[in-house]
């Protein structure tokens, strides 16, 4: 007979696949603050399930003004991600994230729903430190040293793109391009406070295109523009009586992508940027093996916060489980 406790645990871990969140990693201390899937120090494996609900709330025009979506329209995307991070050596770790995407759109009385796999992410991360950088009190200069992670994040175009065999833009779940992003995360925790900054520079790889939305076209070469991002976050951790941790984090992120190149010519109509602000709450068990997290991120519906890009808000939830 199967032990009830085991069933409950199994349900909890399975729930990780179907209700979890992606974003959230652990910091080197095992808390939840950072923005990418990062395995805590001295842990072998981490699995993560994530759920994101993204709602489109208009867009920033190329004049940087904010515009509302057409009346009687409702655009939404739901993403479910499963991710795993494995420690390769004391300082190296690798991760894989595989998403499934549902598009739920309503336009002028028509429901336009579709679903499919999204673009996958394979990453490799190098940690520049050997010991945990979270401290309770600063006694020496050494205690101020942050945890620094350097990652190579590769996007694999496994999603449905405009160049797949698909008949309209409402069914898109991926961009159709490989990308490599070099990213750095600098994270410091002096309990109960946490601060982090992150930045990245990404390069898309060019590809031939001979089909648009299911119809063959004269082939051409397309390369999406390079992108860079910057972000910062600050958090406060509350210690519960049983030493479980509750952490509140506020964050700001900026992303900028240059125009695509089509047959070598830059398309300046396609460049964009936008900023987002977010808040998240995480609950970490005292053994730091399990992290539950919910979050909300939004692009403000005001002019100057972006250009040539959609304005969205994202509600997310997730669970990470660490195997030491």
């Amino acid at each position, binding site marked *: 007979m199967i032990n009830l406790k*085991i069933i409950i*645990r*199994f349900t909890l*871990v399975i729930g990780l*696949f179907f209700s979890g969140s992606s974003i959230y990693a652990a910091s080197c201390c095992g808390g939840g603050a950072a923005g990418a899937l990062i395995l805590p120090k001295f842990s072998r*494996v981490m*699995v993560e399930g994530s759920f994101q609900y993204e709602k489109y709330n208009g*867009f*920033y*025009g*190329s004049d940087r003004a904010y*515009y*509302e979506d*057409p*009346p*009687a329209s409702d655009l939404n995307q739901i993403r479910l991600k*499963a991710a*795993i991070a494995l420690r390769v050596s004391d300082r190296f770790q690798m991760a894989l994230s*595989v998403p499934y995407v549902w598009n739920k759109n309503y*336009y*002028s009385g*028509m429901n336009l729903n579709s679903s499919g*796999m999204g673009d*996958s992410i394979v990453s490799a991360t190098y940690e520049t430190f050997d010991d945990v950088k979270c401290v309770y009190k600063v006694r020496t200069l050494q205690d101020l040293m942050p945890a620094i992670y350097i990652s190579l994040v590769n996007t*694999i*175009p*496994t*999603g449905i793109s405009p*160049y*797949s*065999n698909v*008949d*309209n*833009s409402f069914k898109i779940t*991926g961009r159709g391009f490989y990308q490599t992003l070099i990213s750095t995360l600098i994270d410091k925790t002096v309990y109960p406070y946490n601060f982090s900054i992150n930045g990245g520079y990404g390069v898309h790889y060019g590809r*031939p*295109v*001979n*089909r*648009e*939305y*299911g119809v*063959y*076209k*004269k*082939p051409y070469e*397309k390369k999406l523009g390079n992108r860079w991002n910057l972000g910062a976050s600050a958090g406060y951790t509350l210690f519960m009586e049983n030493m479980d941790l509750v952490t509140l984090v506020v964050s700001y992120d900026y992303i900028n992508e240059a*125009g695509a190149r*089509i047959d070598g*010519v*830059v*398309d*300046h*109509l*396609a460049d*964009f940027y936008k900023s987002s602000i977010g808040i998240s709450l995480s609950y970490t068990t005292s053994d730091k093996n399990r992290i539950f997290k919910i979050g909300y991120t939004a692009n403000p519906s005001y002019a100057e916060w972006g250009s*040539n*890009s*959609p304005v969205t808000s994202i509600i997310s939830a997730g669970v990470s489980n660490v*195997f030491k």
Partner: protein
Amino acid sequence: MYSSKLVFKKNILKSFVWIMIITFTFQCANNFSDIFPDSTDKTGSNSASGQAGTISTNLQVTDMYGNQYPLYNDLAGVKGSVYYFTMWCSICMAHSGEIINNIKPSYTGFNYFLVDYVSSTPSQTRQLSDYFAFTGLIGVLNDGSGSLLSYFHATMSSVVVIDSTGRIQMNEDFKDGSRLRSVLQSL
């Protein structure tokens, strides 16, 4: 007790890894055209209607005031007509602005239209045209029935050019507009 917990955790972990590997492999196999993009010209194998090189059907079109007329009326007395399919999104706005501000003044003798395929009625199309300040700058059509969208196999940011004889000279994504410019230049 400790070892059974460990075995349980290992099994869960193994299951997770296998699910990830299978899903990832399935994704790659299912989307072969993006994993290994093809540069072959396969336009000859298109069976879709309304593609470049063919003569357009004289479809019925509806403008944002509710007037209905045959598409060929737009071709009378001009070198041709340009139809840009919009869903009023950010990239659609950038392309529409480029057509109105730069392409239309540079390539005269053509009719220029935005085709709103997401509004079900002409009055909704007119509201949006007014909201985005396009009214009076360019013709705006309502394709609530989806007849143009379906015939041309168009979607967001598709652009179709039909010359004065009814021949479709271009039907593809707007991209940076240079292809549209060269087609208009050639007519």
